[in-house]
């Protein structure tokens, strides 16, 4: 029996959809489970089989988590660290990327590949050397210390990413600006930067996400209770004998909110870039 091409393409399509649906389920199920659990009373958390709908539902987990210990302080600490680290990373990475994309200086590529090397070392391996350096520089137990490390951890990737964006700007735009009387800084600030907005948005989102979520280094570097960030705070909800999973999940949901906001604010910038729209045709 032969299979007609039409049947075959239908079968292929069904397979693709099945695969995609499976992917969606895999991605959303844990999130859904988190939401549901955060709304369950503690007694129902370990029910087998688990309910995928919270009944009875309660918001007590949220009330308790948010009023517990220093949740508010941890939240603000995280917000401060993530915001400053993101802002500075965007500025520094953009300047570095522009230099690598457009300026000529000796050893440019060597330095660039050196920078990329930083991307290839697993962050966990860096914790001990980082700890020693941070200690010598008195950057332990301080939010500034966290910010410095977070920026340095992000710079290589983000510079790499932005270099591509800057290189996508037609050279003639910069030449036009040069003839219009722009200095290198003006070209960067008034021509190039506005045109790589989609790239800057990506950098902002990823850096914020990283700085907001980072756990291992914050765990190592911060001892003082008042300087803890949110991931550490949430981790402390878990204890050896009894973990209030409902509260852990409630805190996690609250912790997602700023990330969602940052994403919502920046994503509209990378929907459509207009780098090429001043060109011909």
């Amino acid at each position: 029996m032969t299979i007609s091409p039409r049947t075959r393409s239908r079968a292929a399509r069904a397979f693709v959809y099945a695969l995609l649906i499976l992917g969606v389920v895999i991605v959303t199920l844990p999130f859904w489970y988190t939401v549901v659990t955060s709304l369950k009373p503690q007694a129902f958390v370990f029910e087998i089989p688990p309910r995928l709908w919270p009944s009875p539902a309660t918001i007590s987990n949220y009330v308790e988590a948010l009023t517990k210990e220093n949740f508010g302080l941890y939240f603000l600490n995280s917000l401060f660290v993530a915001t400053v680290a993101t802002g500075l990373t965007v500025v520094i990475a953009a300047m570095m990327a522009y230099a690598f994309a457009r300026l000529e200086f000796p050893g440019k590529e060597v330095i660039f590949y050196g920078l990329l090397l930083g991307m290839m070392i697993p962050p966990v391996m860096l914790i001990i050397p980082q700890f020693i350096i941070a200690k010598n520089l008195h950057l332990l137990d301080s939010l500034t210390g966290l910010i410095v490390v977070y920026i340095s951890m992000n710079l290589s990737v983000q510079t790499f990413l932005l270099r591509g964006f800057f290189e996508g700007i037609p050279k003639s735009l910069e030449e036009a600006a040069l003839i219009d009387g722009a200095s290198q800084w003006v070209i960067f600030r008034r021509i190039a930067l506005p045109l790589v907005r989609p790239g800057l948005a990506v950098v902002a989102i990823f850096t914020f996400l990283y700085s907001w979520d980072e756990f291992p280094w914050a765990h190592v570097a911060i001892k003082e209770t008042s300087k803890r960030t949110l991931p550490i705070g949430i981790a402390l909800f878990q204890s050896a004998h009894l973990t209030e999973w409902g509260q852990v999940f409630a805190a996690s949901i609250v912790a997602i909110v700023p990330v969602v906001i940052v994403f919502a604010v920046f994503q509209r910038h990378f929907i459509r870039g207009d780098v090429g729209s001043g060109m011909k045709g």
Partner: protein
Amino acid sequence: MATITMHDVGKIYPDGTRAVGAMNLAVGDGEFLVLVGPSGCGKSTALRMIAGLEDVTEGTISIDNVVVNDVRPKDRDIAMVFQNYALYPHMTVYDNMAFGLKLRKVPKDEIRQQVNAAAEMLEITELLERKPKALSGGQRQRVAMGRAIVREPAVFLMDEPLSNLDAKLRVQMRSELTGLHQRLGTTTVYVTHDQVEAMTLGHRVAVMRPVSPERPYNLQQVAAPTELFNNPANLFVAGFIGSPSMNLVYGTLTQDDAGVVHLGFCDKTVTVDARAVDGHPGIEDYFGMQVVVGIRPSAMEDARVSTRSESETIEVESLVNELLGSETYVHFELPSPPVLTPDVEENLRDQGLDASSLGDTTKFTARISPDVDVPDFTQLRLAIDTPKIHFFDAETSDKIGYRAWDDHSADELFTQRS
């Protein structure tokens, strides 16, 4: 207002390739000079050197008699229109035009006034608040022009500004450019690969050609359009300028006892008008030798409506006739091997062809009056306007008796004009 002088200018890229060599050129105050040539002929590089976007490897470039080799683009008092327009995509048309003035710290009121005036001149006032992506190709082109004229620079540099427009718009913009130049009178250097654009826009046209090891210079001829057409320096210029291009055939010149010069080509013989002989000083040395004969399509006419004498006519068989209404093109072949010199090959390459496309006959096109009816595949008597025949050295490709371009110093060219 300014003059531009290029003195022995050369450009060698860091990888060792030479793009421009021994370029001597003087652009007069208020002149519209066109650099034309096939791709890779160095015309854009030359323009970018004047703009200061490329370093000058050899020689000097002066604007208003000041050497500008090391002057930054913004201090050269120039404005440039780019082939791809290069409008700033994130700025409105107004901001695009005002950008250069803002950077020069011109007061706001004055900027507004100047931008509005330029916009009015180009009829883009209603587009001022739009961004480039909301503009059509033709509108973008105007904005690019506007950005250049608003600063009232001493020199306009234009790098194939019309090449991205469709044919109709290009013709319209071409005449608008001429009008604009007449109004502003700004010295302009214009780069194009389109010989029609070159001929219609330029006060003078500089025909350029890629450098080669044997010929380390680009400029072939710098002359007024009519001069280029009527007196091409060599086969390259002859083939590049004019459409349809000049017909070329190998021929031999002889002189009879009465002093009349006869031209034999293929199986034809015609007498050559004395004016053509006089136009090629030193042609006597070529009598009896093979030369390349150049006859423009427009220098031929159906013998029935021509006033040329019988001895200046040839009998051909027409293959294809193209009736364009205002003129008719008659295509025919002569049983003679096609003219093939490095110049001819270079022109073919520019059209994406090679020597094999010529076949083994010489193809001719004649432009004749539309009033005579010529069916395909008929015997036809064509009169040749022999005063307009060109003779070229078959070895060097140069027009016989033509004064070579490099005899002109830049100063000399300039004084010739003014």
